[in-house]
């Protein structure tokens, strides 16, 4: 993937602007997801995602190839979206350790196992909506895009240890939310 990206980057730098289409098509979904999850507006996200690719095109000569092209591009997306919301940094979600202390994940997983796949997905998606968008973006990069902690750190500008702690806390929060939803549902049926 990275080698192919580099091939098309070279073509663009040699004057073949049309080759940038391939790079846009490859990365538009993730760029749009990053921007959309930070801005929480499809309309704004469309425009800002376009700005991201335009910025990338203009700065392509500055891409040093030390990191993956996608990491570099997602960092532009992240920074552009954050500056749009006038936030300097992703806010650390206010999850106190005391809230999640002694939380037993095994119990939640066991409870979830009793549900059908559709129900599991429904709980998961609803819980994901309840956590801050920026946090869900970190999880998306980690699980769906399978980015390493180092890459997420590079994209988000957070330190490696901060990303680790945040991922840990966000996961706990996500499970806690799922658990609350399950309990609420059980309580409702009883």
């Amino acid at each position, binding site marked *: 993937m990275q080698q192919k990206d580099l091939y098309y980057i070279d073509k663009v730098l040699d004057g073949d*602007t049309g080759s940038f289409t391939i790079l*846009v098509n490859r990365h538009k979904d993730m760029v749009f997801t990053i921007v959309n999850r930070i801005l929480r507006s499809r309309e704004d996200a469309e425009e800002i995602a*376009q700005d991201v690719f335009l910025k990338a095109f203009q700065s392509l000569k500055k891409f040093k190839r030390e990191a993956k092209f996608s990491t570099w591009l997602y960092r532009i997306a992240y920074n552009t979206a954050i500056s749009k919301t006038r936030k300097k940094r992703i806010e650390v979600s206010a999850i106190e350790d005391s809230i999640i202390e002694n939380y037993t994940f095994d119990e939640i*997983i066991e409870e979830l196992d009793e549900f059908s796949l559709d129900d599991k997905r429904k709980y998961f998606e609803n819980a994901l909506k309840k956590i801050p968008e920026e946090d869900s973006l970190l999880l998306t990069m980690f699980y769906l895009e399978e980015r390493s902690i180092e890459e997420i750190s590079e994209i988000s500008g957070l330190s490696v240890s901060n990303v680790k702690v945040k991922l840990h806390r966000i996961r706990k929060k996500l499970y806690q939310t799922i658990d609350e939803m399950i309990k609420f549902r059980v309580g409702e049926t009883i």
Partner: protein
Amino acid sequence: MKQFNKEVEMGKTNEFKDDFLKRMFKQSSLDSPSDDFTKLVMNRIQVEAVEKSEADKPVIEPVYWILIVAGLAIAAYMLFQMDLSFIQNLFASIEIKPIEFPQFTLNFINSIQSFISNIKIPTIFIVAVVAVISLITLDKVLKTRFSMNMFVF
């Protein structure tokens, strides 16, 4: 010690939790922009590329600068009898061999020279002609520049 215990706890539970979340995330998908997203991006890039190439070009090409400076020099000479001997000094070091023309050609050149010397053109007329030519050239240059940028949004 507290930090160590935290890390051990993270390590113990991560594998199982990750597996569940990984499965769940794989079943969900990324957000997608509109169908014409790529087209819109590429349109903006094309416009950017045109604007950049235009911005890189000088407003007035060097050849036109030479013409303008030459026109101004002629006009200054005509109007104020400016001392342009420095140009002569500039080329003084260059030795140019006189060209030997055949007799017929010499006669022809002499007749043209005597014809020109008999013509009396007022200085103001020459200045006016130079000024008009300079203005037309400048107008042409500027029109070409602005008409190219007019439709770039």
